[in-house]
């Protein structure tokens, strides 16, 4: 092709010329695909040509050149400069154009992330990656390949709040199992950081029960955290798996997480001293898994759990008695704990400091307020949406030729007689 002869200049010219409307852009896309080889051969002119393009108008062309550019090894001093231009591109590029070449975009973002890890400044990547995800997603239900990387950056930069904003979207569509596992696992960690244990439990549960044909390390780590979070949030852990869990997971996960299962057994006894000695003796194991912090939270959650249990049985109880039954050091400490729990809304009680008595009250919620009714109403609406989705999915599935093909094959194998006997009966 003669265009090749003119090399970079003509490429840039083409990009500038063909970026206005959608038919032009399709043409440009084909052109860029053909000239990919050229782009990857000549590093020296790439950076200079980038300067001639506007990322918000010439997004597609800019993306191709940037991708070529970032795939070359870059000298350390130039990295920072390059990252700035990538970040600027991500911020200003047009979502429509980059969605034409998602793979290029993903590869740019991945490289971007790698460089950021190289510089050990994860916080620089958080905001651009979030924008990148939003631009790449066709709907908020889609899981992109970038989600996991973004969450990892959030964890490293301790920007849990930003990470959590992404997790609030319900994800349904995903095609890469590995990405899904990582997304849920990192998502779980972000939620733990935000102390959103319910959401964390849900995400980790998804990892543990996800269909899998071979066991993977992500699931094992997720199961360990699942046990701990379950203890913190629910105060108990049931070792039985739901029946939809893959058989690989059911068979193997427990073998890899013995100390955690023992921890949950020890938690179940309700004796704090026992739990503490167990944690002390197994400290190295938890530490090597980087779970010691969570384990400590499990221990402290036990105090709360025990105090909460007291509210079920007592109407009044002295602080001294609370300290004795919960094994706290003294009434002063018991008072601190109870006060904290009242403030957090975990128990309803009043402390009488004069005679050191705590009076436990019933939950004052009467389910009569407008707010509560609105809450219930919105819950019902949400559930209706969800269940509609389920129905439509079911319908879709039962019309899917591939699914029917598979089911039909299996039916034939198992119920061969049923298939034949029916018409025979009628012909007689």
């Amino acid at each position, binding site marked *: 092709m003669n265009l090749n002869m003119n090399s970079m200049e003509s490429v840039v010219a083409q990009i500038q010329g063909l970026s206005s409307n959608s038919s032009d852009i399709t043409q440009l896309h084909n052109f860029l695909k053909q000239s990919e080889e050229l782009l990857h051969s000549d590093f020296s002119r790439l950076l200079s040509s980038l300067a001639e393009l506007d990322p918000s108008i010439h997004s597609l062309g800019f993306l191709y050149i940037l991708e070529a550019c970032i795939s070359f090894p870059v000298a350390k001093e130039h990295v920072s400069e390059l990252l700035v231009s990538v970040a600027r591109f991500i911020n200003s590029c047009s979502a429509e154009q980059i969605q034409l070449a998602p793979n290029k975009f993903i590869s740019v973002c991945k490289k971007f992330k790698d460089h950021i890890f190289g510089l050990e400044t994860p916080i620089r990547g958080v905001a651009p990656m979030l924008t990148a995800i939003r631009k790449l997603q066709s709907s908020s239900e889609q899981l992109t390949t970038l989600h996991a990387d973004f969450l990892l950056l959030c964890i490293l930069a301790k920007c849990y709040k930003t990470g959590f904003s992404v997790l609030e979207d319900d994800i349904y569509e995903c*095609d890469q199992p590995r990405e899904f596992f990582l997304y849920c696992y990192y998502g779980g960690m972000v939620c733990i950081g935000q102390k959103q244990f319910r959401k964390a439990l849900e995400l980790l549960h998804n990892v543990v029960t996800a269909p899998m044909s071979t066991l993977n390390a992500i699931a094992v780590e997720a199961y360990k955290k699942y046990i701990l979070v379950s203890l913190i949030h629910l105060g108990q852990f049931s070792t039985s798996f739901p029946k939809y869990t893959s058989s690989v997971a059911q068979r193997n996960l427990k073998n890899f997480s013995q100390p955690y299962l023992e921890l949950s057994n020890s938690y179940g006894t309700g004796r704090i001293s026992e739990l503490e000695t167990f944690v002390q003796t197994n400290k190295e194991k938890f530490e090597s898994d980087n779970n010691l912090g969570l384990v400590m939270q499990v221990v402290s959650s036990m105090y709360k759990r025990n105090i909460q249990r007291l509210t079920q049985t007592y109407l009044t109880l002295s602080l001294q008695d609370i300290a004795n039954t919960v094994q706290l050091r003294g009434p002063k400490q018991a008072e601190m704990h109870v006060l904290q729990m009242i403030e957090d809304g975990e128990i309803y009680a009043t402390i009488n400091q004069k005679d050191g008595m705590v009076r436990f009250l019933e939950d004052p919620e009467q389910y009569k307020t407008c707010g509560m009714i609105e809450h*219930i109403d919105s819950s019902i609406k949400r559930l209706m949406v969800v269940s509609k989705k389920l129905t439509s999915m079911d319908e879709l599935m039962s019309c899917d030729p591939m699914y029917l093909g598979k089911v039909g094959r299996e039916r034939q194998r198992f119920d061969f007689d049923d298939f034949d006997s029916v018409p025979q009966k009628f012909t007689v």
Partner: protein
Amino acid sequence: MEPDEDLGLIADEIYANGDENTQRHRPIISSEQLDVEAYAALYSGRTKIMRLHFIADRCGNASMQLEALRMAYDEIKKGENTQLFREVVQKIDGRLGTNYGPDPAWADSVDRRADLRKEKLESELNAYRTNLIKESIRMGYNDFGDFYYAHGQLGEAFKNYVRTRDYCTTAKHIIHMCLNAILVSIEMGQFTHVTSYVSKAEQSQDALDAITVAKLRCAAGLAHLEAKKYKLAARKFLEVGPELGNNYTEVIAPQDVATYGGLCALASFDRAELKSKVIDNINFRNFLELVPEIRELIHDFYTSHYASCLEYLGNLKANLLLDIHLHDHVETLYDQIRSKALIQYTHPFVSVDLNMMANAFKTSVAGLEKELEALITDNQIQARIDSHNKILYARHADQRNATFQKVLQTGKEFDRDVRSMLLRANLLKHDYIARTSRKH
């Protein structure tokens, strides 16, 4: 009468609820120590020896132990079980003088006779088998079973008794076989066999006489007891007819039926069932007359004299621990009876003064609080303790709030489950597509 005084009287009465038995009852003196001789006289056969053995092992009282061993020794001498004989002699260890030493002459002669008898039985059985006479073969196996049983080889005995099954021609034979199998299984402690043979025997209804029915009920009750199914055990023991009498002493005495049945019923029945099935049960009343302590404690329990009931239980405990079948279950049964009593005591009241309650149960307030706490946590008592004023308040669950709570919770769970279901379905779908596309 002044109203105040009246109230005071009532309060006194409530307060005394439990310890008034001192005036009301003439306390039945349960023997501090088990009368081994009287106890042993209730049983016959192998179980007598085994029970004595058990007592000797468990009682921890030298004179009682020797007494039991002496009687076991005498009993064994009447039979042919040389192995048990040697064990007992070893346990006696010469402490009972020369009369109770290892009698090698006796043991040898028994063994010799046993060998001869075995040979004779074998040749007989072979002859029967060549002639193919069903009834004789059955008898032959039966004799073998008897022989092995007498010599303490229970496994072999069981096998031979069971073998007779193929040669049974009438329902009577089958029942005979079942009873033998049950007897041996009980001795072996194989209670699953007991259950299966009991049900087998019960299938042939027409050939069952009243005594056999009673025996089968006892055996089934024992099997349920061992399996810790106290309610079922209680029902079986309560169904035992008065025909039992002293017909099943090789397994159980009628006194035991009363004890086992009574305790299991107390631990597992509710008030109405206790009244209808135990107290108003004429059959069972006959059994209870044999063990007045149990009768009294059941009545005390029913009439809410818990202190006296628990006192009887406390007195009986030492002896029950020496019972070969009940010893493992005494603690559990006692705990259950005690919790039942506590629950029943609190049930009719809106508020209960813990001091009075502690008095009725002869325990300290602090101890009572702990017990109540456990029961409340278990959701067996719906109440809350006012630890400051030492009062227990009944708690009336607010159905409306509970329903709201439950609905919201269920909604959340549904939401979560459906979402993860959709996710899994999508994952599966993609996985499936990935695999097929790779294949092509």
